[in-house]
């Protein structure tokens, strides 16, 4: 959403990729020898407390089988995409202190499908969706699965959050019938009638032809970030301290909705993730792989060799994250994987902010980013929030993208938010004591 300043002829808008200009067949990634399943319901639990784990090495899993990694009655579970034995269980630390348990499943020769879902789900209900489908490609949010009446509107995103990706657009353009079926099922099981497909102009006609209730949003980045969708379609600017649930809204990706339809049609829990793969030369292809497939297998299937000093990115170019190992799995929300060659990586510089104001013009949340960086650089997170609205940032990354001094503004912001949350948590604890 680079607002074009009046009379400014040279700056271009950042447009989302259009699936219409996409003409490649889908690469089917061959079955991997092992899958890596990430479980993020870890919270305070430590993997060392082995008695808490409900799975152990050498446990056999069937294709599509769900299992609870912890004995704890948390409702979170994982679905195995292959038939295989658990070979190891580790913790994996990710950005900003986020912890996962990674469970590695080694593939067995013979594939056995788990029948549990097909037996229990002759009829779609919220209960069996919640019991089996929360890990499907695209994922279904807790709020939808446990709907207690607060959610009034579900937006089905036929748009992609970040640049380069066409994953969800592809679903709209090529699986519109499953999407339509999925929306019907979703309406029936949740009792929410207001399910709206959100697309950009490239797919408006496709959606209308299928007679799906549709809203069109701009194809300019970052208009399809959830907060901006809500702003555009409902005219609500979600305050930083409120959640979508508070205003009765939730989101689900087009891929997830199509997967719901597929699940009930075939009686199998879908485990294949569709994603956009961006090669080193910038060309983009669609690939399909099981959730949990290590990225190195994906890259190999897409004829891309990863060398030292390259950058491997999951998620889009504006908001994704670079990871340090190609032994990282495809997750159920990995819409984009990007490989950047070492020589294409633009480095940050150590210039200070020159107060040019480009970031302020670019910011869709109307922050005074130029002042914000000054406070964040100095580590004054609370002042940054009180006076310069740190928490109102909607995390689009545009400020870093346009910064002429190449300051990692967005990194400062994310770190600032993380530190601020810690400060607030600590303050709350002290009050409790």
């Amino acid at each position, binding site marked *: 959403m680079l607002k074009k*300043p*009046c*009379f*400014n*002829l*040279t700056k271009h808008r950042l447009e989302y990729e259009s699936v219409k200009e996409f003409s490649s067949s889908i690469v089917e990634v061959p079955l991997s020898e092992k899958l890596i399943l990430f479980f993020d319901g870890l919270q305070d639990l430590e993997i060392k407390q082995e008695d808490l784990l409900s799975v152990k090495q050498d446990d056999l899993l069937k294709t599509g089988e769900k299992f609870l990694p912890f004995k704890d009655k948390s409702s979170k579970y994982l679905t195995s995409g292959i038939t295989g034995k658990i070979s190891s269980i580790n913790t994996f630390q990710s950005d900003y202190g986020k912890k996962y348990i990674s469970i590695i499943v080694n593939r067995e020769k013979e594939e056995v499908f788990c029948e549990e879902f097909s037996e229990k789900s002759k009829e779609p209900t919220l209960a069996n969706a919640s019991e089996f489908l929360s890990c499907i490609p695209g994922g279904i949010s807790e709020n939808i699965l446990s709907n207690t009446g607060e959610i009034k509107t579900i937006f089905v995103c036929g748009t992609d959050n970040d640049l380069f990706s066409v994953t969800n657009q592809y679903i709209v353009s090529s699986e519109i019938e499953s999407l339509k079926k999925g929306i019907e099922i979703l309406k029936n099981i949740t009792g929410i009638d207001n399910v709206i497909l959100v697309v950009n102009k490239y797919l408006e006609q496709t959606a209308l032809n299928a007679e799906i209730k549709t809203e069109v949003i701009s194809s300019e980045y970052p208009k399809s970030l959830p907060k901006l969708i809500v702003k555009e379609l409902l005219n609500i*600017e*979600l*305050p*930083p301290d*409120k959640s979508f649930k508070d205003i009765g809204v939730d989101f689900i990706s087009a891929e997830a909705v199509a997967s719901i339809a597929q699940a009930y049609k075939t009686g199998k829990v879908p485990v294949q993730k569709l994603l956009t793969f961006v090669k080193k030369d910038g060309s983009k292809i669609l690939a399909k792989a099981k959730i949990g497939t290590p990225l190195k297998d994906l890259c190999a299937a897409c004829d891309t060799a*990863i060398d*030292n*000093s390259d*950058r491997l*990115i999951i*998620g889009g*170019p*504006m*908001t*994704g*994250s*670079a*990871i*340090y190992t*190609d032994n990282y799995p495809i997750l159920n929300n990995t819409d984009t994987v*990007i490989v*950047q060659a*070492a020589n294409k*990586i*633009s480095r*940050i510089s150590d*210039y*200070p*902010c*020159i*107060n*040019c*104001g*480009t970031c*302020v013009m670019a910011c869709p*949340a*109307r*922050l*005074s980013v130029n*002042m914000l960086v000054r406070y964040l650089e100095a580590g004054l997170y609370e002042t940054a929030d009180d006076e310069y*609205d740190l928490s*109102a*940032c*909607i995390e689009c*990354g*545009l400020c*870093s*993208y346009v*910064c*002429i001094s*190449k300051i*990692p503004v967005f*990194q400062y912001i*994310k770190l600032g938010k993380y530190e601020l949350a810690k400060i607030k948590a600590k303050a709350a604890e002290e009050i409790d004591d």
Partner: protein
Amino acid sequence: MIKQKKLIVSHAPFIHNGSKISIKNYNIMLAALPALLAGFYYYGIRAVGVVGLSISFSIFWELAFSVITKSEKRIGDGSSAVIGIIFAMMLPATAPWWLILVGTFVAVIIGREIFGGIGGNPFNPSILGIAIIMLSWKEYFDFNQALINFDMDFNMFYPLAALKSFGASSISSFSIFDLMLGKQAGAIGAVFGIGIIIGGLYLIAKGIIRWEICFSFIAGILLTAMTFAMFAPASYTGPFFHLFTGYTLLGVFFLAPEDSSSPVNRMPMIIYGLGCGILTILIRNIGVYADGIIYAILIMNLINPLIDKIKPKAFGKV
């Protein structure tokens, strides 16, 4: 285990729009060219010398500072060269070398480096340099004296001095059109109004300077000068004379919009521009100085951090 590949890890976003400080500065230099070339045309080789010296000295000062303080050398980004060029544009073609040496020292070292270098300067460095040497060696900025040896085919009386000393009736001999073409006595880069406007519009189109500041600056000048002229047409001249004389256009397009010393939010930019314009005319019409631009912009630079606090409500805040 196979040896881990070493991948580059860094934070999003992973792409950049390619803007660079050096490109920005080269564009500013390019934009200054039409006005400079006109200055060279009218004042000849001496003007070329002044500009050349000014650029060299500015770069020298920055280099010297970075060597002494052992900081990173950044002269390649062109920001000192820009300070030098803009500083020279405000000088008469007869400025002696030592004046330029001192002026660029004030501009680069006092105006910028001691505030932490690029981005830290509260004032426009070139203006600070000019203001200080103007106070110290007034005679060099008496354009009538300074340019006495130049024999041109147009009126070589410095228009603002004429206005100040002899009142509004004395300036009827200046045609606005001549003023626009640079047929007036003045500083090297400040006489050719049309050239400055072309350069300025180029910078606006490139998104390097902000139209809000430039246009509100002009609006401030026009409105204030018009008000004066309306109430006392005998003593005050009309707005267009002000626009095309002295440092006005230079101020509008090259001095006031300098990044670090000007606001970034829209409303503040407009207030800042208007303020510059209004103060300029107030100083010219009732102050003691013939040209008010320098002090007007310095004052607005000073209160810039205050005005820039006026900002829009952030997303979702009420």
